[in-house]
């Protein structure tokens, strides 16, 4: 059983560009959350998707947007990239209403903005 799959694993973009990151949740999971992890820090919650809608949002600007598809997979889009957006982007899936041990994290996408 595959866990959470994220693509691509690494990405280099130029300031001002746009980027799309992808996540396939663990089988049986219907809720997807995205986190940003800057180097040397803990992950920070970006937003969560369930039933193709954004249900919760962290303190991130509107440049960060997302989407969830009927098969529960999800995309994270970041527009007008800034150098400070360089980070590891983590996707976590869970069954609705479960946290803690219900969360499964992917290995992340390392985004570098130059």
């Amino acid at each position: 059983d595959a866990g959470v799959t994220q693509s691509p694993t690494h990405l280099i973009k130029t300031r001002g560009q746009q980027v799309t990151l992808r996540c396939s949740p663990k089988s049986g999971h219907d809720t997807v959350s995205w986190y940003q992890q800057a180097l040397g820090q803990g992950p920070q919650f970006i937003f969560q998707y369930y039933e193709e809608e954004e249900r919760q949002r962290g303190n991130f600007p509107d440049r960060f947007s997302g989407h969830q598809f009927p098969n529960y997979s999800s995309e994270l889009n970041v527009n007008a990239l800034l150098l400070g957006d360089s980070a590891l982007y983590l996707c976590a899936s869970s069954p609705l209403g479960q946290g803690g041990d219900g969360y499964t994290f992917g290995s992340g996408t390392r985004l570098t903005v130059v």
Partner: protein
Amino acid sequence: GESVGLHLPTLSVQEGDNSIINCAYSNSASDYFIWYKQESGKGPQFIIDIRSNMDKRQGQRVTVLLNKTVKHLSLQIAATQPGDSAVYFCAENKGKAAGNKLTFGGGTRVLVKP
């Protein structure tokens, strides 16, 4: 592999010794805490959790202690092994109403010396 955090507090421990990792939290209303392990190039992996109505919980080679009076959490790893080398994060689960989103602490790097 990639380094999760280059400037994290580091705990160096001899193989076979016990490790203690500490975490402070600020929200006295928090009622659910989780410890995660993050190895280089991977996403966080669930270790153990504890609810605020408990002071202690034990797993396989791990024990979590919760002191609500001083808002302090600790993770004890017994007989530390080379495979325990990783970055460890504590996280608060914000509850179902908040989509079980996680707020992570800053992390501690554990280095196991042979």
